[in-house]
């Protein structure tokens, strides 16, 4: 009887926790949707700027692809890769990056926000601070990257709902790894004071490595691109999943997204204990 009562109590506690978690997800979803709506309203305040940034980014991306088109005209294959593979790789990276900066635009300047006491306003409000700060800004140019990514995919992929479904899953996973990586690097600011330059270098390194075929790197470099700078999980691996479904590649992109997200959340919140607001500028950590 006592054992049953204990089990009943544990179940009731578990049930309460599940209900609280479901409520929390519902509340935060509503909140982040409201935040994205406000971001969109702010973007639409400046229609010309919005359109010019989107078109500008698409032209920028097109210039990059023209370079590769010329390259593959002379060397049709690099490590088994041709122009369609490159389009898929670039498209996946552009989509992941674009989604990241449109939905979580502050990821790019999180290090500056931490260093300039910018977390104060977020910490004074009753929402999860990391989610709030990341979604607190939207980069208009990201829409140009998303459009480029969709075009690249539409030009190269097999038509069909399954392929679009794989593309959506892969793009979300790519975005998660990208944003999480930026959060990890920016979180170093909590300890070392000024990680803005490091953050900018990490973004460039990430995007540079993500837009090259994985086959041109050797074992050690490949390992680096799957761990320290997880560029492979932004471009190559999700692109491979989009080309053709496999349990292995699905597991890889989901695991990469999950692990990087968990690492980012844990590191950021550990760092938050060291947040010194006005004292940060002189902090030795």
């Amino acid at each position, binding site marked *: 009887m006592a054992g049953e009562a204990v089990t009943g109590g544990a179940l009731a506690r578990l049930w309460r926790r599940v209900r609280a978690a479901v409520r929390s997800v519902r*509340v935060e979803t*509503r*909140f982040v949707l*409201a*935040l994205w709506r*406000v971001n969109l*309203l*702010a973007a639409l*305040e*400046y229609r010309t700027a919005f359109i010019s940034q989107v078109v500008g980014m698409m032209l920028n991306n097109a210039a990059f692809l023209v370079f590769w088109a010329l390259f593959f005209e002379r060397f049709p294959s690099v490590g088994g890769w041709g122009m369609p593979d490159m389009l898929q790789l670039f498209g996946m990276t552009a989509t992941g990056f674009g989604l990241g900066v449109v939905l979580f635009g502050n990821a790019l300047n999180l290090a500056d926000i931490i260093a300039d006491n910018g*977390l*104060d*306003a977020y*910490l*004074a*409000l*009753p*929402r999860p601070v990391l989610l709030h700060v990341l979604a607190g800004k939207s980069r208009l140019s990201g829409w140009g990257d998303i459009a480029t990514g969709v075009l690249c995919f539409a030009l190269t992929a097999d038509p069909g709902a399954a392929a679009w479904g794989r593309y959506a899953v892969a793009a979300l996973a790519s975005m998660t790894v990208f944003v999480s990586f930026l959060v990890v690097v920016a979180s170093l600011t909590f300890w070392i004071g000024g990680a803005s330059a490091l953050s900018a270098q990490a973004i460039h390194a990430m995007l540079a490595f993500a837009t090259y075929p994985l086959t041109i790197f050797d074992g050690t470099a490949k390992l680096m691109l799957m761990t320290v700078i997880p560029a492979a999980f932004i471009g190559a691996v999700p692109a491979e999943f989009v080309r053709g479904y496999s349990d292995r590649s699905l597991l890889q992109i989901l695991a990469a997204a999950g692990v990087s997200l968990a690492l980012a959340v844990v590191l950021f919140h550990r760092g938050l*204990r060291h*947040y*010194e*607001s*006005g*004292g940060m500028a*002189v*902090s*030795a*950590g």
Partner: protein
Amino acid sequence: MPSIVVDNLRKTFAAKRKSAGLTGSLRAMVRPDRTTVEAVQGLSFRMDDGELLGFIGPNGAGKSTTIKILTGILYPTSGTAEVLGFVPWRERRKLAYHIGTVFGQRSQLWPHLPAIDTLALFGKIYELDHRTVRRRITLLSEAFEITHLLETPVRKLSLGQRMRCEVAASLLHQPRLILLDEPSIGLDPVAKQRIRDMIIRMNAEEGVGVLLTSHDAGDIEALCKRVIIVNHGQIVYDDRVSALKRRYLTVKDVGVRFVEPIAGDVDIPGAEVVKVGGGGYGLKLRFDTTVTPAAELLAHIGALGGVEDVTISDPSLEDVIRVIYEQAAAGEAIRPADGSWPSVEPEGSEGAP
């Protein structure tokens, strides 16, 4: 019932020191000289529910650090604090539902959007239903006279208009306490007065407590009955505003206008004659109330001739605070052990009566 209880609160920051120039920078890179800065040094105070409390001090005194600890933004190094029954740094999000904050130098409103959009977003942030948000926006926009401003992009508002919207936004969720960090910074006198009137109104109507930091002594004088002065992370004064002026400023200025001109030299025991002007009709004196009782002085004045008008003025709170800071900077004892308070002379008290 106290809304804030702070006991022996401390906050230290690690800081790097370096000597000037390139050599100093290179030396600091190789062998950094680390030191500890004590921003808050054992603060203890209480604030009652619905109280209007001023929290003032010079730059670097530790007031903003204290406010940030009390809102859960910063962790203290040691000590305890409870705000509305919550430990701020452990229960930040729970506390945030019950407090409002305004940081005068950092806007919470979205600059490119009308304030009404930010208020709607705040409704989601505080999980308010649509009806409550609408009701509160109507009430606050009338109270703060911002109804006509709600649909104008915030970047196009004047600083005073924006600040009214900021304070209104901080009250949307009907908090029990608002923490205002320099709410009047950069505002002209008219805009300052409007903000003060509105804060007093919300305190009276909704019972919201106000913890206010400001460099403007006028804010404290107009809004607060009690004031805490901090310097170098320590409380140097915690009492009523009126007591602060009474204790610190025993020197008063007296302006007299006589019915007929007074003749000859004026000599009043216990008072310094600053000026005899206006063709003998006007007289300005300065006296110390601890030396000369006001009644005695007035009797001496009456003996000089028929008095048409007389004014006895307190120096402004600005003068009080200036003297306290100067004394603190000079390392003088702020509160003498015998409980007596040094007197100060008001600044700019020269001139014709």
